[in-house]
């Protein structure tokens, strides 16, 4: 093992033990480890943004007054300066302008992204199961495919009803119609199944990470004993 590898292992084990000290009820060493993570990540993020975004898209076009991008770069420069003014008490109102620009553009991108990337594919995939060639084979109905398609449609509708909270207010409590309550309960079963499967996936990943961290500590101990 080279000296740099040994140093990496020692730092890694020390940080891992600091994080796991949380189990013993310690807050100081856990706090130190998380604050190191925040400090290093923030600096790394700042460096990446400066090198990959600010320098090539803003500074370089502005450095060439006769270049094609000079005038276009003045707008984000002005917006960035307005954002920096947010540090001063009197400049908070000016800082709302670049944030509004960002918010508006991102909202528009979200509208297009959600309709084209989420809603349309999900709904089309659900309805695609009702296409005749999916439900019939050699002029015979495929009952398992029909059952599956109907189940998916009803399941999705019932899940959507779980979040339907409108109802009559009785003595300060919102009472939903019995039909909605029933359909919502079926939806809850489907949500429970999904969350259960997601839980297992996440739990497995976390367990692998736990084993990896513990094996690093064991490797370090074996090095000395």
């Amino acid at each position: 093992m080279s000296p740099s590898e040994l140093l990496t292992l020692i730092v890694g084990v020390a940080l891992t033990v600091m994080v796991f000290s949380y189990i013993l009820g310690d807050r100081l060493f856990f706090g130190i480890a998380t604050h190191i993570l925040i400090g290093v990540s923030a600096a790394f993020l700042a460096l990446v943004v400066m090198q990959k975004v600010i320098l090539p898209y803003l500074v370089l076009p502005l450095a060439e007054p006769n270049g094609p991008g000079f005038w276009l770069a003045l707008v984000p420069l002005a917006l960035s300066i307005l954002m920096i003014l947010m540090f001063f008490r009197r400049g908070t109102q000016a800082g709302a302008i670049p944030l509004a620009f960002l918010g508006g553009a991102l909202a528009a991108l979200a509208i297009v992204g959600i309709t084209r990337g989420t809603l349309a594919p999900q709904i089309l995939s659900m309805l695609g199961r009702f296409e005749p060639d999916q439900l019939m084979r050699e002029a015979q109905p495929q009952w398992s495919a029909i059952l599956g398609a109907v189940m998916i449609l009803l399941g999705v509708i019932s899940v959507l009803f779980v979040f339907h909270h409108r109802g009559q207010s009785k003595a300060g409590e919102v009472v939903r119609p019995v039909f909605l309550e029933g359909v919502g309960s079926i939806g809850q079963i489907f949500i429970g199944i999904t969350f259960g499967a997601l839980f297992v996936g996440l739990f497995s990943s976390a367990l692998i990470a736990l084993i990896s961290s513990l094996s690093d500590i064991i490797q370090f101990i074996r090095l000395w004993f």
Partner: protein
Amino acid sequence: MKRPIPLIVGALSGLIVLAAMFIVPQGGGILAIVLNWVIIVAGAALLVAIASLVLTHVRFIAKGKKGFLLSLVLVISFITTLALGLLLGVDRPSFLKFVGAIIRPIETALLGLVALVMMSAAMKIFRERGWSSLTVSFGVSAIIFLILGLGFPQNLNIPVLNEVIRFVEGLPMIGARGLLIGIGIGLLLMAFRVLFGMEGFGND
């Protein structure tokens, strides 16, 4: 009270992006310019947010607030990484190795800690919410998928069982699809509210 200038800027930028997206290729040029601006302003916003975070912790240290030691750790680690990055260069393997040597073990250990927290949270859900269709289906599903994850039932190679497993493995997609559509509709409404100034910027 709504402030008019941010409201107009927000609505205008959103409507330009929307219009440019729906009249592509004519609007392609405008869209590229506006998206370029969005990337730069988002980058600047990120830098301002990071600077604000560090300045807040510097103020904590200066005032000697409770827990300033942790603020000191954050500021030192920030300055060290920034200085090393500027000296060595962000793309240099030695710098990336340094950042990885610190971030990787902490993130892996935190993820490992999540496994233990998730175990107790799963037990807590039954204590807090009692026996309902949601908790029972969650518990049963977790146990079934844990067993399926082991791969033991699949290795039995029983055709009927394999059919059942395939059916069961498809069940979470129903809930996921419903949740995705529900979240999508909610986000869509929120985006329209932001675009028309009913939410977010422009408010005092």
